């Protein structure tokens, strides 16, 4: 990229091959950086491998980092090089090293750059979309009518009810019991139905690689498949008021048999309470009497049928 045609020949000095030098430095730094990252950091990248969606997210992180690092290094290597090699004196002392056409534009190299960056981002887009579709929505909330569903015909349905400031979980397969601990069986497809009773919350099960907003009056469905036994931390990840930071609880993924035992015991234990709960529904309206945690199935005016809902709920209070 010189401009010997413009510069007077007396000022011509032999320029080192900047571009090749830069390319060589960048290549070495990038290869070393990527290899170190992939081997040393890669396996420990969150959120781990407890579920299918978590494992995919870990893979996505690694792939994107491996692509991104050389891009970052390209600019950083260039800047450091420029700082060292092309540092000028005081303002006004020196003349520009180059002017002319090459200083103003360089069509071929610009086109290469544009094609290169476009190819990278389109490649990442395809990768990201495949990684969204293959693991059935990748653990994100897909709304009430999911486009991407898991192969398993019979995922375990778990409803997540968010309200200021707690999460509770209802298991329709176990009599609609409502627990405040998330317990899941291992090696099982799970369908989360996330909803809220008041403001918008977000159900984030960190180790499961699941995040779905809890919107009032909406059934937000997210899928995952458990692969490993382990702990679960559930946090609210959307600002929901004063005690947003305190809105978290813990759970676990346990072997299938242990889950069955737990579920049967808990169902029996909670039976008297479950009886008083409103029937299972995909969305609910909060108890209009105030923030007491009570709720009613959606689209039902709690006061119009006191014999069905109101009376029982009042008893529950």
């Amino acid at each position, binding site marked *: 990229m010189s401009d010997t045609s413009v510069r007077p020949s007396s000022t011509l000095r032999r320029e080192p091959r900047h571009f090749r030098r830069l390319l060589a430095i960048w290549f070495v730094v990038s290869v070393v950086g990527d290899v170190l990252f992939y081997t040393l950091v890669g396996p420990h990248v969150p959120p781990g491998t407890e579920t299918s969606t978590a494992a995919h997210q870990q893979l996505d992180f690694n792939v994107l980092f491996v692509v991104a690092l050389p891009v970052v290094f390209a600019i950083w290597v260039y800047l450091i090089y420029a700082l060292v090699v092309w540092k000028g004196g005081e303002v006004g002392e020196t003349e520009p090293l180059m002017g002319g056409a090459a200083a103003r534009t360089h069509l071929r190299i610009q086109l290469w750059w544009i094609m290169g960056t476009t190819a990278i981002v389109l490649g990442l887009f395809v990768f*990201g979309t495949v990684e969204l579709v293959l693991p059935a929505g990748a653990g994100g909330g897909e709304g009430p009518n999911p486009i991407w569903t898991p192969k398993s015909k019979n995922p375990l349905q778990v409803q997540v009810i968010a309200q200021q400031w707690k999460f509770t979980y209802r298991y329709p397969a176990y009599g609609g019991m409502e627990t405040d601990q998330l317990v899941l069986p291992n090696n099982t497809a799970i369908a989360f139905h996330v909803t809220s009773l008041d*403001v918008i919350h977000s159900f984030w099960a960190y180790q499961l690689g699941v995040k779905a907003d809890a919107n009032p009056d909406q059934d937000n469905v997210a899928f995952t498949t458990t692969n490993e036994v382990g702990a679960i931390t559930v946090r609210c*990840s959307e600002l929901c008021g004063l005690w947003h930071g305190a809105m978290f609880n813990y759970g676990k993924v346990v072997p299938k048999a242990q889950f069955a035992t737990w579920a049967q015991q808990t169902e029996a234990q909670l039976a008297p309470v479950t009886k008083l709960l409103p029937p299972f529904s995909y969305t609910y*309206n909060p108890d209009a009497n105030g923030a007491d945690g009570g709720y009613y199935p959606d689209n039902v005016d709690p006061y119009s049928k006191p014999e069905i809902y109101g009376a029982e709920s009042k008893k529950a209070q």
Partner: protein
Amino acid sequence: MTLLAERPSPLSHPEEPEHGHEPSGVLNWLTSTDHKVIGKSYTITSLVFFCLAGVMAVVIRTQLASPDGTIVSQHTYNELFTMHGSLMLYLFAGPFAFGGLANYIVPLQVGAPDMAFPRLNALSYWLYLTGGLTMIAGFLTVGGAADFGWVAYAPLSNAVNSPGAGPDMWIVALVLTGFSAIFTGVNIVATIFYLRAPGLTMFRLPIFTWNMLVTAILILVAFPVLTAALILLWCDRHLGAHIFTTTGGGVPVLWQNLFWFFGHPEVYILALPYFGMVTDVLATFSRKPVFGYRGMIFATISIGALSTAVWAHHMFTTGVVLLPFFSLMSYLIAVPTGIKFFNWIGTMWRGSLHFTTAMLFAVGFLIVFLFGGVTGVLLAAPPVDFATHNTYFVVAHFHEVLFGSAVFGGFAGLYYWYPKMTGRMLRERLGQASFWFMFIGFWVTFLPQYLLGLHGMPRRIAEYAASEGWTGLNRVSSVGAYLLFISVAIMVVNFYISWRRPIVASGNPWDGQTLEWAAASPPVHHNFTWLPPVRSERPVWDFNHPEHTTQQHRQSDHATDGLVGVATTGFTDTGEESE
């Protein structure tokens, strides 16, 4: 290329024309319609808001420096991060660029005596100041200031969940500053289209002015949406409109769509002006023309256009948006941004780089913004967004792009144009100290936040348990925040010294290239007593360096290769091949 007759130079009336008696002092500040006075008022006011919001950030970081922090209550904490974000985004980053520096510099760069609508300009400032004070005054109300985050998601922001006057004042403040921004946008567009000096065609405008044009158009696209949404929210709060609540058939997620339809163009409204400043600074201190000038302009326009089609990437987890579409759009916007990066480093290629404070901040911007931009590319993949959405990873990402733009880019612009605006130089040594504190402090603050996000720390939480294992990284991050505080303090000292012990700046202290450097420092009442002939995008350089004029290069290119040759000589004559 338009060729116009030489105009007499200097102009035939070198003396100041008689404008009648100009008031001075406070009265001047109150009544002036001069873009320079208003621009300075904007700059100072927005920097005061920046410092206030910075102090809030320091309190926030102090609260988070240890587990179960008790420096402030949960409620105060929520007010603090809400107001920190609101002040920084609505009252600093935007107005500092389009109300402050652009207001001052754009008329100078186009060779105009003032903005197109000087009184509207004054109205903009007074609306902005009133709005800003209204927002801050929320702290004085019984229930405190707004505490629902700078995004004010419904239904958290409704009258039931956020009662009180503070939130109402926040809404009113944003309506006022929204109108202020809209008026400024109109003014900038009109000024650039209609008040350019003879010979200054659109493709000879400085990049900063071009970016301000696109920014102003984006303001006109985005801000009315926010203003309308805020009025709807106010109706929800006071008239029972039920637009954003489920009762009565409203849709809470509608707020997010409206807000982010403003909010994402807003991100570029906050970034493009600083891209422009950095471009001008890099060209001046590399002593070269802007590399890929037209590519730069088309990249800016593409960013502006694409920025209106990416808003739902803030809503990937809501379950109501089509993920692949918004993922694709978000990825595509990286391409024009990449063109800009290439042209920035191309501008530096084999230049004669002068590391003044302004240049340091500009290079700091490149380093910081790149990292923020690349982590943004990561977030455009929905699966990665699911893992990081609303965690400290995102907090670190947007601080890298926004702090990178508005503070590194903005301070590059401020140090660059400060002599023009005040007629005084800033102390270089203090400026460089300020830069290094900021650069190091920045990474110490935000790198740990990426890791905290990956380790599961959500944003906007007032406290965390020691058992989470987040303490160490949070502590490091807080130390970084103190370094940033020191950096800004040094800069304030620098301003103070230049005020008390001025070093007089010449009209063109940096050997600048664009028209503002043809005016005195600070410019006289109607800016120019004289203009150089405008034959390229760097008329002042051409005038001062006749041996290196841009026009000569062009002519030599044309002479050898014809018009296409401008491009072709570039790549047939590369350094590698000519050796």
